């Protein structure tokens, strides 16, 4: 059962792949692939629920080993499934969301020619994510880590005819690889220091390494701080934290179910999961935690600020994801790992809901994603509207929706940590919460209310999505409404310790969640107030006076452009990494290899040999008098020399 929960999606993907290879094209094949993957995913989700009950509720943690993976000297890693509360929660979230997305895809992709391929990728992606969260060693985690990376590459570039989709896919993979570069170095470092890559061995040895130094490059660093920071670079790449966030908004080139899968339940949450999983290491590296906190808080505000002005419906939600991940990281940074995972779970539900609802909008608008061409859709697609409202309410953290519980505990924990970085995170988090409410309602107002701005032909076709797409929305909506309320006591409340057991380590000195329950009343109420203000502002700007935003944008051209162009990160990276790489490559090729190495080496030697040989052969003219003349000169020289020396 424990293995099957992870392997079912792989089986589903294989069936879909085999159908693709051997079954004749047609509707039957598509249907079979859809059924196979959805059934496998559904079974996996059912198993996950049972496992969640056994492991998280009843406390039967266990590790199931399959067979050895890498065995080289002291480096021994197996394919294994480690189930403790942390991974059980993740498996539950991933499989449930993924199942909803699989079912939704049947409707969303119904007229796409690549259905089996799409379903296979989705399942493969889910499999990799499950491998990641159930890993009991760094190498299997790295397998899942890169696996989701490559699946996201395949999914983002799913419509491979589009140049923009291909570019986005490559970008996603390469930026992720930059993160993996840090992750890999971190693993090498862990192995070099601890002599093992198995989590339990490493965690057990961590306390003995406190205060030790590690010589890295030409300097000495605190061992644990350095290793945690290197590993965190990986987390930044995968979870799209500044400055490795640039791939995420572009990833919207993929079909919408992909966006939901990548940006809600899986992949981007991997970084948060990793930090939580490695809490026994991070806890002993306070400097690394401070960095995590600062990066998280900065991303939260950066992404929210960019989200304010985007016009593509999916990009707004994408930046919102980026921003929410920032919240999760700064929660980790103040040792509130439980709060981070709690928010990860609630976020998975409401963000998947938002993405799939926006997919439903796009579906209704015949593929249009620009909100400037929407407006006034409310009467046509009421169910989607309701779902969008639920998702937005949860995202903005208004009482009693899921996000309210999880976001508040994060902000309270940041405040309760009583550290400088905690305060930094708290205040940026509050401002980001205001922006979150604003852009969420900006999205709602621009899409559903006001005058219809779409062209007539499109508007005539606007229709509610079929049931196969709506039912998954209902499931996710239930999660978005109730997940926070149900989970609060177990995840971060009074039953917290019995729930998490040994899966997360928090040193007694770092107990910020405990402190969070004792913060002043204004700290608890402030996020709600700024949220309401944000909604009010959006109402004022986009319903009461729809001309105003344009005027503001004109008056503050510089700021507006700066935000619209995402703080010019893409341009910057293009200028300092991408173009120089090509220039250098070309220079090395033409100037290095061809002109210098070949020019001085083989070609030069060959040319010189040839020239010498020509000269030498030129001497052999075949005329007797030439030879005779040469001999004469020789004789004269010899005789002269003889006479001079002897004489």
């Amino acid at each position, binding site marked *: 059962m424990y293995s099957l929960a992870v392997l079912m999606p792989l089986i589903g993907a294989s069936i879909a792949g085999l159908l693709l290879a051997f079954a004749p094209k047609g509707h039957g094949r598509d249907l079979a692939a859809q059924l196979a993957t959805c059934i496998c995913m559904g079974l996996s989700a059912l198993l996950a629920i049972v496992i969640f009950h056994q492991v998280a509720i009843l406390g039967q943690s266990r590790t199931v080993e399959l067979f050895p993976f890498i065995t080289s000297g002291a480096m021994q890693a197996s394919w294994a499934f480690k189930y403790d509360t942390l991974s059980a929660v993740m498996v539950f979230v991933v499989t449930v969301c993924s199942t909803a997305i699989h079912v939704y895809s049947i409707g969303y992709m119904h007229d796409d020619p690549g259905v089996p391929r799409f379903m296979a990728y989705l399942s493969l992606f889910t499999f990799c994510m499950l491998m990641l969260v159930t890993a009991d060693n760094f190498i299997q985690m790295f397998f899942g880590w890169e696996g989701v990376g490559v699946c996201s590459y395949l999914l983002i570039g799913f419509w*491979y005819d589009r140049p923009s989709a291909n570019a986005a896919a490559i970008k996603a993979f390469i930026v992720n690889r930059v993160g993996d570069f840090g992750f890999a170095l971190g693993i090498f470092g862990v192995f070099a220091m601890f002599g093992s890559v198995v989590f339990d061995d490493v965690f057990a040895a961590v306390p003995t390494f406190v205060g030790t130094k590690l010589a890295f490059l030409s300097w000495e660093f605190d061992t644990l701080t350095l290793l945690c920071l290197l590993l965190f670079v990986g987390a930044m790449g995968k979870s799209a934290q500044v400055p490795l966030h640039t791939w995420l908004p572009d990833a919207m080139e993929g079909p919408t179910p992909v966006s939901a899968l990548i940006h809600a339940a899986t992949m981007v949450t991997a970084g948060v999961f990793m930090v939580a999983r490695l809490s026994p290491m991070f806890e002993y590296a306070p400097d690394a935690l401070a960095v995590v906190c600062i990066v998280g808080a900065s991303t939260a505000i950066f992404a929210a600020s960019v989200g304010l002005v985007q016009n593509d419906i999916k990009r707004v939600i994408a930046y919102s994801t980026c921003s929410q991940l920032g919240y999760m990281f700064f929660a980790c940074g103040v040792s509130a790992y439980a709060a981070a995972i709690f928010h990860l779970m609630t976020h998975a539900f409401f963000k998947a809901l938002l993405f799939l609802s926006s997919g439903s909008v796009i579906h209704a608008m015949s593929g249009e994603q620009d909100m400037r061409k929407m407006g006034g859709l409310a009467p046509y697609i009421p169910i989607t509207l309701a779902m969008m409202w639920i998702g937005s309410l949860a995202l903005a953290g208004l009482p009693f929706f899921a996000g309210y519980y999880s976001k508040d505990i994060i902000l309270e924990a940041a405040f309760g940590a009583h550290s400088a970085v905690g305060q930094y995170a708290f205040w940026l988090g509050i401002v980001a919460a205001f922006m979150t409410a604003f852009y969420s309602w900006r999205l709602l107002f621009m899409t559903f209310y006001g005058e219809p701005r779409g062209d007539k032909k499109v508007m005539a076709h606007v229709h509610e999505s079929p049931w196969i797409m709506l039912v998954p929305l209902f499931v996710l909506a239930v999660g978005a409404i109730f997940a926070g309320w149900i989970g609060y006591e177990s995840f971060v409340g009074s039953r917290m310790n019995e729930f998490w057991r040994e899966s997360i380590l928090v040193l007694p000195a770092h107990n910020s969640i405990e402190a969070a329950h004792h913060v002043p009343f204004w700290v608890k109420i402030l996020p709600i107030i700024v949220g309401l203000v944000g909604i009010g502002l959006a109402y004022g700007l986009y319903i009461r006076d729809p001309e105003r935003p344009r005027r503001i944008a004109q008056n503050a051209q510089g700021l507006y452009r700066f935000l619209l162009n995402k703080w010019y990160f893409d341009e910057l990276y293009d200028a300092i990494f991408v173009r120089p790489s090509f220039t250098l490559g070309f220079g090395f090729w033409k100037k290095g290899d061809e002109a210098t190495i070949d020019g001085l080496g083989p070609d030069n030697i060959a040319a010189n040999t040839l020239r010498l040989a020509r000269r030498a052969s030129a001497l052999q003219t075949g005329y007797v008098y030439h030879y005779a003349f040469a001999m004469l000169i020789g004789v004269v020289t010899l005789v002269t020399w003889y006479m001079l020396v002897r004489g």
Partner: protein
Amino acid sequence: MMSGWPLLSLVTFLPLVGAGFIFCVRGSDEVVAQNARHAALWTSLLTFVLSIFLWVDFDVRTSDFQFVETRAWIPAFGITYKMGIDGVSLLFVLLSTFLTPICILASWEAIETRVREYMISFLVLETMMVGMFCALDMVLFYIFFEGVLIPMFLIIGVWGGKRRVYSAFKFFLYTLAGSVLMLLAILFIYFETETTDIPALLNIYIEPNVQFWLWLAFFASFAVKVPMWPVHTWLPDAHVEAPTAGSVILAGVLLKMGAYGFLRFSVPMLPDASVFFTPFVYVLSIIAIIYTSLVALVQEDMKKLIAYSSVAHMGFVTLGTFTGNVQGVEGALFTMLSHGIVSGALFLIVGVIYDRMHTREIARYGGLVHRMPLYAFVFMVMMLASVGLPGTSGFVGEFLSLAGAFQANTWAALFATTGIILGAAYMLYLYRRVVFGELTRQDLKNITDLNLREKIIFAPLVVLVLWMGIYPKPFLDVFAASSGPIAARYHAAKTAAVLQPGIFSLIAEKPE
């Protein structure tokens, strides 16, 4: 089960027998060609089957040489015919015997002229390659090592592309120039120790200052073969002009000869000099990884791109070899094996579309996935393996060599690890330009997907790449039989640190 047989000699010389048989075939051109193809295929398949017994009967618990055969050869000079394999060489023998039938199958239709001579060249080449990996006598090793050049030279020079003669000579002279120095080193060793027996030499301690010069002489030969930067420029030319199967063997097996030499001779026989020169090797390896990756990024010719990527991958090999720890050495060996299969497959992949369109220019393609989904799938698997994705063979070796490098030198590990980013960049960029996008070119509209023969070629390669990536233990166990002693020798020399950095002082005190 076949212990009574001289199995190694059988595996080595069976292809030669096949070549002799083909040589005797008479008849019309067409009949000769067809017979030559079949004879070559069946000979190489039989050789492969025999070589599997080597692995079956191989004892992974010992680092001693196994299947050893000794016969007197030139008794006057104490030179013997001695063959044997250990954990370092076993899988490369198998790699050679595995790739040869694939190459012959890949040349089935592509080679139309002088088929008989072509097949003979290939079988002779196989004998030379296998013999090179099995030889346990320096002189014998040298003969095989150089012997490989001749059939390869002919394959490039006779059946190659437009600039084949230039490339063939460049290849030949480059590699020969290095080998001459190795010959001197072998002669010197012979005159000093009066033996050319490799297992015996492994137990003879050579004076550190002598090691210094011997190491350089061996290095000149092996570095060209690997190839290491800056003596790599023969490789792109040779690959571009060689016929597909020639490229496969060149990348698959011939590039491994240099690294094999490092692991067989340089590190275990000359450990003090190896420790001394380690920083030098690291620098060249890192330059190879970064420099050639960037060059690969801007290539316009598919084969050239993959050739440059080979140089980058070999950078990981040389890096791992000189880390002097188990992970590094096993990583280097695994990368060699994986690269042999993956780059071989990539050259075959280029060959598939070259056979159809007769061009290797990247810009001439695009959108192949529309017409060739299966091809796109195979290409994807091999591309990901080349990128080093976990779950494929490429990952294990790269990961282990880098993990080894980190323990040895963090600077080297840092720079070399950037290779995983650059590697992804050039391969993904290649794949996108060739396979993805819209199919706009008129002449590509009728291109056909893999045929049965090509499916048979690629199926074992795909299976092997996944097997090595998911369950690498059987391969790692073989390497583990020998990696420990090699690492231990290096480590002992490092602790002793006889040779201190500072080249000029060393040259000043001349070796006695």
